[in-house]
């Protein structure tokens, strides 16, 4: 009830300011007149009574202001005049306005860029099935280094096979080997060799992560004990190279097979 009333009066004060002002004027005029009559009845002469009545009520403009403010318009009025003043000032000093706007834009832009980067790198989890369930053995560096003290090739391919065979803890195990950066190869249909970013993954890799290869085949159970080569094995770089490979899946897979045979990894 009370809230409804407040909203009703506030709305009237904000949207029908002119009507409200003229109503207040009428009300005050009536008040002044009847007060002057009262004074005249007490024996004050006509003009003097009117003057005194007016003086007692005070400035009609100020009265209008305070009556309107009583209906909760102060915040609204101040906000409106502040905004108007701001716009006027901005137009008056366009240079200052430009500097302010540009620095705001730069500030917001820089922050957005940094946040997007952090979001992509740190906050958003890996785009795979159950990222929280993944466990990385070793520290993830090349050649299966288990710790920062020595270079132990602990995570060899036979190790992986044993691990799979006797695994009672994990739902599945996958192996990944990043080849050194000096791998070169030819894509079928091209003449020159080019540097390649190659990762060898076990046949369980895709099914374990629950992702699909962009082109070619995923491996699957029947590939279980064979390695597959992947151009730009990480999803993101694969994504970047998608256009390059589009329309040539057979060539790519054939190329991968050749890499297999070359490395003699097909076990």
């Amino acid at each position, binding site marked *: 009830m009370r809230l409804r009333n407040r909203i009703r009066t506030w709305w009237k004060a904000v949207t029908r300011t002119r009507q409200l002002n003229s109503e207040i004027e009428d009300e005050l005029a009536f008040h002044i007149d009847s007060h002057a009559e009262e004074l005249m009845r007490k024996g004050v002469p006509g003009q003097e009574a009117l003057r005194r009545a007016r003086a007692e009520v*005070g400035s009609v403009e100020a009265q209008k202001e305070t009556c309107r403010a009583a209906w909760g318009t102060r915040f609204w009025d101040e906000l409106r005049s502040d905004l108007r003043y701001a716009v006027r000032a901005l137009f008056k000093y366009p240079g200052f306005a430009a500097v302010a706007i540009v620095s705001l834009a730069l500030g917001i832009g820089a922050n957005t860029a940094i946040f997007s980067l952090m979001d992509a790198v740190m906050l958003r989890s890996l785009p795979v099935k159950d990222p929280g369930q993944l466990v990385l053995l070793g520290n993830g560096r090349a050649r299966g280094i288990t710790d920062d003290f020595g270079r132990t090739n602990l995570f060899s391919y036979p190790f992986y096979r044993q691990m799979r065979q006797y695994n009672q803890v994990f739902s599945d195990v996958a192996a990944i080997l990043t080849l050194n950066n000096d791998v070169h190869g030819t894509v079928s249909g091209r003449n020159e060799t080019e540097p390649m970013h190659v990762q060898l993954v076990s046949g369980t890799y895709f099914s374990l992560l629950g992702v699909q290869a962009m082109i070619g085949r995923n491996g699957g159970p029947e590939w279980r004990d064979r390695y597959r080569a992947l151009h730009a094995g990480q999803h993101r770089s694969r994504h970047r190279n998608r256009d390059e490979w589009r329309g040539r899946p057979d060539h790519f897979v054939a190329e991968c097979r050749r890499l297999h045979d070359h490395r003699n990894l097909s076990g």
Partner: protein
Amino acid sequence: MLRARCCRRCARRSELKPDCCRIEQISGNRLEIPQGSLYPALYRLEHEGWLASEWGQSDKNRKAKYYRLTAAGRRRLNAEAKRWNHMADAIGAILSAAPEQI
């Protein structure tokens, strides 16, 4: 506070136009109410929903605004009057306490 109470009192009898002089008379000319502070107080009371106003004709056929106490306003008035009387009683009791009572 006092001002608001006075205005409420003037509107207590249903449909009276606000009149400071009348309030002063009722108070035995002991309360003086500045004319300028009457209307902002009335508007505030209307904003809170304790008064309702409507336009009508005065006895001299002039357009005049009449105020009426709403049900919520009456409840509030009773509550405030009770509080005031409570307070006045308390202070009266303190002031009239005899030395031997202390």
